């Protein structure tokens, strides 16, 4: 894929995930707000393997800020997305499959398998949600509330992120 082609593709992914976040999941939750879905971080998960750490962190910051604008959260989402954008390369390194990654590999279920992607996604989703709810719920001083919301929402987000993996990426051509 050419550089411009790649930027266009990921630009479209950004619009897609943000539209879904704002038009659907901003208004929708399970169990009276216990499980919220932040599917927009799927965009940060699927950014190219070889993206520079600097661009990744900057993209993380601005996508978080974009979501903050609609949730009236000031900078809480930005704080959480910057954290996972910073940690992403380390998580990818830790999860290196036997034989290493291929050059320019696509970070998806289709190319790295369900088990790899699910592990990768749940680690980053959990870190993001934990950070998010700690700051967001600070005013209540309720540890159980933070934990229950983090766990329920992580599962919810993971399911939706995996669902989109099957909707967007075509299966590996052999």
């Amino acid at each position: 894929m050419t550089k411009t082609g790649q930027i266009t593709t990921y630009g479209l992914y950004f619009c897609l995930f943000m539209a879904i976040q704002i038009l659907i999941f901003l208004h929708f939750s399970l169990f009276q707000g216990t499980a919220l879905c932040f599917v927009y971080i799927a965009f940060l998960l699927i950014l190219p393997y070889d993206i520079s750490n600097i661009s990744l962190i900057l993209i993380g910051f601005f996508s978080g800020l974009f979501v903050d604008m609609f949730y009236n959260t000031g900078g809480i989402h930005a704080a959480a997305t910057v954290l996972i954008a910073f940690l992403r390369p380390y998580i990818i390194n830790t999860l290196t499959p036997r034989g290493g990654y291929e050059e320019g590999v696509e970070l998806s279920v289709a190319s790295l398998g369900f088990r790899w992607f699910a592990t990768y996604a749940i680690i980053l989703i959990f870190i993001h949600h934990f950070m998010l709810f700690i700051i967001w719920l600070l005013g209540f001083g309720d540890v159980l509330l933070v934990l229950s919301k983090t766990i329920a929402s992580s599962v919810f987000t993971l399911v939706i992120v995996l669902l989109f993996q099957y909707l967007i990426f075509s299966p590996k051509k052999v």
Partner: protein
Amino acid sequence: MYKIFEFFYRFRAFLLFIFLEILAFWMIVTYNSYQGTAFFNTSSSFAGKILATENDIVSYFQLKQVNKILVAENNHLLSLVTKLNKEVGEPKDTASPFLKENQYTFITAKVVKNSTDLPENYLTLGEGSLAGIKPDMGVIGAKGLVGRVKTVSPHFSTVISMLYSGMNVASKIKGKNIDATVIWDGHNPSEGKVLHVVRHHTIAKGDTLVTSEYNAVYPAGVMIGTIKDFYLGSGSADYDITLNFSTDFTALSYVYVISNAKKAERDSLETALKNQDR
């Protein structure tokens, strides 16, 4: 010198990460303490317009329900007017000028966006400073208290809902003159908590909580909710009270923003007192 540059280059990702985290936290702190106009929220024209357009489309499908709510509200107000007329008698032109003066005026606004399931809930209203809305004005619905205006732009405003961690409303138990504070504990969007009711008072299930005179944001007597359940621990000084909000926060379509003509006067007096104490 070269070593320093090398150091910065080597740890540039980490330094950027630290810098942006500090920036994010600074934004969170200023956002939460700042009243007035803010750019990165739903009263900004960008986010406001997107949400208003979305609301325009979705509200077509809710027209029937909204009509029902408005009719019920009219009905309730009409019965209230008749009842009050009976109590007070017909208004006379010769009445005292103090009674004629209207301290509170109401600005009707459409709810463009509302949430009840987030840790901190806001409403976005389709009216802003051009309609006369200012930060810190009280917001009520047909059935009672809704929230307080946080930020305004010319065409939109954001309102801190009662379902918000920092929200506490000075209130009293109607008919018993017991002062209390109403808060939300983050669990259930239809239930709140009542604080500071000491154990020597007698309260009952179904007692009504209204805003008290100690409130600068709302007029006294605005309905908040009724006591659902209460509990008195053997060692505690205060009751643990659960409250049913009278407002159904999940079904708000129109709200009324309260403009208090005497708020500035009261505020300046209270600040003057505060300054004197120092």
